[in-house]
Each structure stands twice: as C-alpha cells, then as structure tokens.
C-alpha cells in the first residue's frame, strides 16, 4: 500500500539537476527551450532547478573535463536515493569531436558514475530529451526506490 502510494508520488514529481561537465552549451539551451510554453516541461511534473541535493534525475551534458573528474563523483554521492542519470548529446557517450589528440576530455561519463539512459545527438531535439526523461525516469525511480528497501 505504502509502496504503491510512493510510486504514484515519485512518478508525478521529478526534480532535475542539469550538470554541464564541459559541453558547448548546445544541449543546455535545448533544455532551456523545454521550459518554454511550447514544450512546457512542468505539465509533466518535471521541474528543473539545478540543485543536486534535492534532485531525482541528473542530466549530464558534455564530456568530462579535468575539473569534473572528482567533482562529478562528489555530486553523484550528494544526490539522495533513488536517483537516475540521463546523459544528453554525443559528448557524454563518446567525447564527440573533443576526444582526439590534444583535447583534454575524459569521456565517457559511464567511467565515473553509473548511467541509466543516453540520448545521442548534437544536440538532441527538445522533444527527444523530453521523451527520454519521461520514458525512463518514472519507472526507474520507482523500482530503485523499492530495491533500496
């Protein structure tokens, strides 16, 4: 009874923290475009507030740069359970063009923290970002919450 009630509440209120680990801003402004009246992220119960201490979903954009190697792990441990990680764009998957000789990036993100979903694209369209968060987040948060018990 309590579990099912928790599931319902967790599914309808998803708090998102956006972390730019060295991306070019392209994915970030597509997330900002999601806040616009056309896409209206908040009608699905998703709320972007950039505070890892109360987030359910960590949205990661960008390959991991030198400064983020330690800080990304620290942010992940500070986020309360249950938490899921969604990466946006090609950078967190492979490092994209920056992962060549001379670049100082340490992709992929999955080397540092466990990743639940990846949305490739440079940058992905706002509708794709929305679809991926909605398809993975509510179910994953609910199951992770029950596993922990």
């Amino acid at each position, binding site marked *: 009874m309590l579990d099912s009630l928790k599931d319902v509440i967790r599914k309808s209120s998803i708090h998102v*923290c*956006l*972390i*730019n*680990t*060295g*991306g*070019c*801003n*392209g*994915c*970030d*402004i*597509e997330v*900002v*475009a999601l*806040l*616009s*009246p*056309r896409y209206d992220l908040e009608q699905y119960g998703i709320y972007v*507030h*950039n*505070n*890892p201490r109360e987030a359910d979903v960590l949205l990661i954009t*960008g*390959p991991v*740069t*030198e*400064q*983020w190697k330690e*800080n990304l792990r620290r*942010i992940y441990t500070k986020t309360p359970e249950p938490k899921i990680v969604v990466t946006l764009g090609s950078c967190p998957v492979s490092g*994209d*063009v*920056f992962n*060549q*000789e*001379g*670049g*100082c*990036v340490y992709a992929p993100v999955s080397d540092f923290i466990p990743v639940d979903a990846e949305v490739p694209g*440079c*940058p992905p*369209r706002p509708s794709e970002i929305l679809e991926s968060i909605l398809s993975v987040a509510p179910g994953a948060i609910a199951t992770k919450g029950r596993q922990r018990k």
Partner: protein
Amino acid sequence: MIVPIGPIHPALKEPARLKLKTKGERVISAEIDLGFVHRGIERIMEGKPWQKGIYLSERVCGICSYVHTQTFAETFEKISGVQAPLRAQYLRVITNELDRIQSHLLANSTFFKSVEHETLFMYMLKMREPIMDAIELLTGNRVNMGWNIVGGVRMDAKDEHLQKIHEIILKLEKEFDTYYGMYAEGPFLRLRSNKVGRMSKKEAIEGRAVGPIGRGSGIKKDYRKSHHTYKDNFDFKVIWRKDGDNFARNMNRFDEIPESIKILKQAIENIPSGDTRIPVEIGRGYGEWINEAPRGEVRYMVETNGNLIKNISIRTPSIMNIDCCARYMLNDAMTVSDAIATYASVDPCIACAERVIVTNEKNEKIKIYL
C-alpha cells in the same frame, strides 16, 4: 564573509564559480573562477584541414555557434584573397541576424529568471521558439547548423522559405512591442534593475567591455559597421546608452532586436540571385577577422600553410565582459541577489570564455595551454 556560488547552483546555467566577499548583506568585492569547461579546441584544430576546423569552431559555443563558423570561413577567405558570392553573403546576414535575435531573447529571459519574474521569462522563450523554427527552416538544424563553408554557404535557400521567414519576423514584430513595454515601463522590474551594477564609460574602456555590455556603458562600437556586407548593402543604426546599469544593458539588447528585424527585411527584399558557393584554393599565411557576435566582437587569428591549420587563436567577447563584471559591476553596495542579477545581465557564456592562452610565441618549444 565569503559567499561561494557555483559551479552547480540554482542561479547559474553554466559552471562558473562566483566568490562574493560580503559584509552583512552588502557585496564588497567579487571574484569569478573559470576553467570548468575547457576542452582545448585550439589545440585539437592544429594540424587539421579547414573542413575539420570549421566543425570544431562551431562547437566553441552553442548559443552563438553560427557566428564562429562565419568568422572562421571569412578568415580563410581573407587569407585566400576571395570573397563569397553576394547571395551567400546575404544568406549569411539573414542567419546571423536570426541568431542574434534568439541569443538576445535568451539572454534577457535568463535575467528575468534571475530577478524571479517568471511571466516575462516565459514570454521571452515563447517569442524565441518561432525564431528557432526559422533557423531550422533555413539551415536544417536548430543549434549547430553546419551552414558556412569557406567560399559561401552549403545550400541555397528557396524563395518560399524566405517568404516563411518574412512572415515569422512580421509576427515577432507585433508581439515584441507588448513585451518590450512590460519591461521598459514596468515599475517593479525597473526597481530591481535601475541603478544596479553600474559601470562607467571610463571603466568599460579600461576593462575592454564589448558588445551590448560596452554599448550599455556608452562605447559606440559595433563591428557590423565595418563589415563589408553590412557597410555596403544595409542601413541600420548602432544602439547605445550611457547609464551602464542592468536596465541599460537589457534595454540595449531589446533595442537591437528591431534593428535586426530591419536588416532582415532589407535582406529578404533585396537578395540577389546567383551562386551560393565558389571553389577556393586556400592561400598561405596569416589572417585576422573580426565579426560582431551577439555578445560583442569575436576575433579569429589563423596561420595556415595552404592546407592545414598551423596556428589558431580565438578571442571571444565573454572573457572581457565577465572580467568587467567581477571587477567593476560587483564592487558596489548591493545585495547578494542583486549580484546574481548583475551577473546574469552580463550574458556570460562560459563555454566561449574558456580559451587557450599561448605565451612566448617566438620560442616555439614553450607553449602554455590554459
């Protein structure tokens, strides 16, 4: 007491660290730390042909990604001693101005969010979406367009597409006046932004402020006036104000949107027919080019050996503007929330600002990449 803000913080979109030295609620001085998103783009570009370089230069920054490719292409055209065909130049102007409008709307929406005015924040983003549609219609992508090449633009635009863009900007013009009035005459927003975060003209010159931030403090400099396409074919005026506070900077960005619409109308009306790209044989040597990005001047300094990029240096506007913000705007009596609003009014683009500094150019063995 020192109040640290960032790198991940509800007030910031991009990772940067603000250290505010406070006495009670007053902010005495501030420091801004960068270095969170440095990827070493210039170093990757070295020893690569321009086709790979232009792809990388687009990913310097996501918001003003267009102007970086245009400047890159025009630097190479200058080195090679050619000019793109007139139709391609007009298409570049159209895309550049559309990009400028969306960037200014995004910058102002961030400011309204930072002063907790959600209504205008939503209106700004509502106005921005049709512009993104227009960019997508013309170039095929919303953010990283891949539209410029050395010697022109990649594709030709059809008349019906240009007609559609004309309709979109006419619609924007109608909407714009309402929301402009809300900010220009709204008493509460004025209280939060008038006489906050002041920078005098002398300080702006000392700190090399550029773009709408410099023009908000009275520096009448717009590099579009010295660009050959704009100088010969378009009629527009440079917007500037002398107050140098948050209100002046935001109004400056607002006032530039009708000017951009004016340029767009002229461009769509007078666009000539002809080729959109010409074959170019890349020359040897060193070249420089300056363009007016939405945030100010962007300067490319390139050295090629005819095929590969030997050396490249990119100077973006955000570096000077962020420095001006920390040094002059924030060392004034104000609250912490005003300090964040001032930081947002500068329109900081951190991904732009993290560039390479090459020291000791003569001795080729010693190079320091930051």
